[in-house]
């Protein structure tokens, strides 16, 4: 079994649901983003999903897009990012860091090298939302070799047979997108199916032995509470960034505690 899945299963014995908090590397500066990750880890975040910014983040909503563009006003390097978050992973062995980005900056860095470096730095999971399973042959091979988990996404509109396929191939955890659209509050008012989340998660669970993480649109305590018993990880992205933008780390931590310290 994967290192990430083992970690999740062990931690779940004492917690009804684990937290994954999202931070954009380099926003508003590299230093500040690392301090912010440190604060979240101090406060008991089980995971940090570190987003390495890309100029054209098509799966993200306005909050994260703006943060990525702001971060890219500086020159950011993938290598430095891996070193920086690798250090955090060493400093906080009770938590895990996973790397999220879009394909192009990772492709330019070199996918094989990326996976190898992640393994060296103790970054055990990789989330690339614009890299579908079918196109990821090379990455999957490298991940197998180095014990890194590529995290696949499923959505409420994923067809049944594809869902079963992705769920049975899930490693580390399966990222269950809670609704149609992009991350956070969207400019686009989707008419997407109001899928019954618990029913959706139950159907995934029947196909997957991997833990389930749920993200997109989570911002209230009730939502997290409702996931307990149905998922293993609640992923907090845009809502945390909105809070952070509003009142800095203090407001961000207040939201994190409100959602997870129970």
């Amino acid at each position, binding site marked *: 079994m994967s290192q990430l899945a083992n970690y999740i299963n062990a931690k779940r014995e004492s917690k009804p649901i684990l937290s994954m908090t999202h931070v954009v590397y380099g926003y508003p500066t590299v230093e500040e983003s690392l301090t912010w990750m440190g604060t979240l880890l101090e406060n008991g975040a089980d995971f940090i999903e570190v987003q390495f910014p*890309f*100029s*054209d*983040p*098509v*799966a*993200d*909503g*306005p909050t994260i*897009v*703006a943060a990525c*563009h702001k971060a*890219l006003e500086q*020159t*950011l*390097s*993938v290598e430095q990012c891996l070193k920086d978050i690798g250090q955090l992973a060493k400093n906080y062995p009770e938590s895990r860091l996973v790397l999220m980005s*879009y*394909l*192009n*900056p*990772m*492709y*330019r*860095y070199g996918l094989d090298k990326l996976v190898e470096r992640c393994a060296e730095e103790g970054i055990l999971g990789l989330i690339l*939302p*614009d*890299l*579908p399973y*079918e*196109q990821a042959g090379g990455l999957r091979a490298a991940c197998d070799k180095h014990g890194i988990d590529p995290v*696949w*996404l*499923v*959505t409420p*509109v*994923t*067809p049944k047979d*594809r869902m079963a396929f992705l769920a049975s191939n899930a490693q580390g955890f399966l990222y269950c*997108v809670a609704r*149609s*659209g*992009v991350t956070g509050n*969207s*400019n*686009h*008012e*989707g*008419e*997407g*199916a109001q899928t019954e989340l618990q029913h959706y998660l139950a159907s995934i669970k029947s196909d997957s032995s991997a833990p389930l993480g749920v993200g997109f649109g989570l911002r209230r305590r009730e939502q997290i509470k409702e996931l307990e018993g149905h998922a293993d990880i609640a992923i907090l992205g845009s809502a945390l960034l909105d809070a952070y933008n509003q009142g800095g780390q203090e407001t961000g931590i207040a939201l994190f505690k409100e959602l997870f310290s129970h």
Partner: protein
Amino acid sequence: MQSDNGYYGEFGGSYIPEILYSSQQQILNAYEEAKNDPAFIAELKQQWQEYSGRPTPLTFCKNLTEHFGGAQIYLKREDLNHSGAHKMNNVIGQGLLVKRMGKKRVIAETGAGQHGIATALVCARLGLECTIYMGAKDVKRQYPNVFWMEQLGATVVPVTEGSQTLRDALDEALRDWSSTHEDSHYLIGTTCGCAPFPEMVAFFQSVIGEEVKEQSKAQFGRYPDKLYACVGGGSNACGLFLPFVDDKDVEMVGVEAGGKGTKLGEHSIRLSHNLGTPGIAQGFASIFIQDDAGQLQETHSISAGLDYVGVSPIIAHLAKEGRINMTYAMDDEVVDACTLLLKNEGIIPALESSHALAGAFKDAPSMSKDTHIVINLSGRGDKDIFNVAKALQDPTFPDFLNDYLEDYEKDTLIKKTEKEA
């Protein structure tokens, strides 16, 4: 040109968020069925003829041919399509596909606004809801098109993120589609994006080259020796070139936007002179203008329609194979070429198409008199009136604008007073 499972050599593919999987599959299947359905093809041809005025002529440029004293110069007159550009060919095709799939709403991105206009026109005709994403910078550059899109009932959304051009409009259209995929079709205007868009748009645009085949035989007894097309996303170039791809004697030249210079941020040259590098973004693998870290970079062109960071995977592949020769034309050369066509042939070309003219005009004088070249005049230039006036520093244009504004305000005031009375 048939793709290999969405790929053209190393380019193409489908790199899209998982949420779009089902919608993409639906388009793949609908397109495969439609292109093999004689009733669909018949309807397509009828709409092209009745609504857009196809076939467009192949016009011999007697004066320019004499002016240069070399190659026999012909123009494929895509500017004579309804809406004034080749964009209509694709939009009519995808519009019929939207009806076939039973979707009610269309999303599109636009650069110069030609694709946006064509989309808004077809949506009005087919009774579809229409949202157009356009970079805020392009909204400013091409306001007349924005005005008409809105008059046609479309919602135009200016995209203020990133570089505020076509690439950002494409990102935002993809985000909309991620939210609304169940009812909406993303009507991509060029031969880019995830499969099957490059292949499908090229299929609908290939009517251009197919007509040139017949017309060249009828008008000068054989296929042209050399074809020229401007290359932004690549749709008009694919349309002219692909039907000739297996006719090895027909040379092909793609002309990119050289802008103001070859420094990063001053041009939109992806393929010629290796200014672009391989990348995977906006749903497909191709050549992009990017930095070493894989961040897409700003581009420039006097023509909004060529101001794009990526390029069709089909064109990237054929350029790599050496089947298409890529070159570029600078902003000032483009304005000169535009003026030359105006004065000699009485045709007003779009600034996009003027790149193809500039590329061809450089070669024409040194070509022998028995060579025949065909330049794709992809669009008409009426939309560029403000930009061309500025580029030519027309002395009376500002007076016209001032007078217009004065009159406009007076008129508004009178209407307001009448209303209140």
